[in-house]
């Protein structure tokens, strides 16, 4: 296997191997909490925290975990950081914690996190794993925040709670509901595939 640069490990998560748009992982939380930009951002930051620190710990201890019990061990490490994130948000940002509902605890079973541990961290160096975790988190972040902004704009006429469209605007209720989420994410995936097929790069 060719040795890749650390910058490549960081960059690939943004577009080329984007966890949401290319690998279509973690869709449950992506679709569910992206009705407002602020919810999306909070969710993405929680994922960032969990993914980075899980990768760090698992990267450090991976050599002493027996192969047969690696998945339960990974889950245990991930669950620790999810609990930390969940309790922190409950204490400091109760309103957002309430809006996100069960989706913060559900990061435990988010495919992006476990998938990265299994597919990347367990096979690569610690430095590469951390770069990978940052890249993947940012890849998740920009997609879900953009998704949240589009849905909030059309569903409420606001972005991050700031009114952008005037009172003439009639909110599209559908964008706040699950169908709006599927439609918008579908457009994102379609546009990215179209750009990739056109440019051949990215």
């Amino acid at each position, binding site marked *: 296997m060719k040795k890749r640069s650390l910058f490549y490990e960081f960059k690939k998560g943004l577009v080329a191997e984007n966890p949401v748009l290319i690998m279509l992982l973690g869709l449950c939380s992506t679709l569910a909490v992206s009705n407002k930009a602020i919810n999306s951002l909070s969710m993405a930051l929680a994922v960032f925290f969990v993914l980075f620190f899980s990768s760090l710990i698992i990267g450090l201890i991976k050599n002493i975990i027996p192969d047969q019990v690696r998945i339960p061990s990974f889950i245990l490490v991930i669950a620790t950081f999810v609990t930390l994130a969940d309790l922190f948000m409950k204490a400091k940002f109760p309103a957002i914690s309430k809006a996100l509902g069960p989706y913060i605890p559900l990061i435990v079973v988010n495919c992006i996190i476990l998938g990265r541990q299994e597919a990347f961290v367990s096979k690569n160096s610690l430095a590469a794993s951390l770069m990978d975790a940052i890249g993947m988190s940012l890849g998740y972040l920009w997609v879900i925040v953009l998704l949240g902004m589009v849905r909030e704009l059309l569903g409420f006429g606001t972005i991050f709670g700031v009114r952008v469209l005037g009172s003439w605007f*009639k909110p*599209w*209720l*559908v*964008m706040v*509901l699950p*169908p709006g989420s599927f*439609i918008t994410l579908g457009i994102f995936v*379609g546009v990215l595939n179209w750009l990739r097929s056109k440019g051949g790069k990215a």
Partner: protein
Amino acid sequence: MSEKLLAVSTSPHVFTREDSRKIMWNTVLSLIPPVLGAIYFFGLRALWVILVSVISAVLAEAIWLYARKMPLSMAIDGSQVITGILLALTLPPTIPLWMASLGAIFGIIFGKQVFGGIGQNIFNPALIGRAFLMAAFPVELTTWVAPTPGFHLTVDATTTATPLALMKFSHQMTPYSKLFWGNVAGSLGETSVFLILLGFVFLVIKKYIDWRESFSYVATVFVLGGIFWLINPSKYPDPLFHILSGGLMLGAVYMITDMVTSPVTPKGRIIYGIGAGILVVLIRLFGGFPEGVMYSILLINMTRPWIDRLTIRRRFGEVRK
């Protein structure tokens, strides 16, 4: 001499000038009675809704075709005109014009073009447009006005409920004659059973639609609605009311029969109609909405590949499994 007696050529041997373009424009012709009915009952505004919807559908299609570098002539092959008219006919008379436009654009892009354009769509594009509007603007899509017969330029609309809603929520019966001729509140083109049947006769004579689908759809609603009526006549409406009210006739004639989304075998079409009919009765009697035609057709659209696979005819020599 002998050459003229027997001309040997490859198939096809029978030619017709009828192509999809001609079929589509003839179907547009068949929509004239309900369109005139809409203007007669709901005033000139109905015409604006229909025009806005059609123009939006054609423009959306043209822009998409241009972006994909496909021939622009496909934007006026008639199919998107049908989508535009059908969408408008399913909308309430008081709908803001921009909403009709948005629905038509959404129906064309997401109901048709993302699947590959004409002949490729899984769902009926007009109903996709309407389902989107229904989810986006539920209040505007369920505000109905009483009809004012007589081609009025402007109408003083009085808000009222549709016969189905009256039945479902306050147990009020609407006379059959009003339902048949269309002098009731409802979507632009769904009220008059008579005018829709005119279009039905034309389409069946031209063989553009299969009467089996329409018939099995309506008959299922009649029979299943009738069974519930016999069980409890004071609670459930009678079967004749079921088939005369709401959008059932419009759906049965113009929507479930869509060539693209219908199964190919006659047997499959009957099953298709029965399935949609069951859904209508279930939604009308036990669902949250008073009317279930739109969702029944969209849901049954999804089953088409399986119905086709189950009912495909055996070829000669094929061994029965």
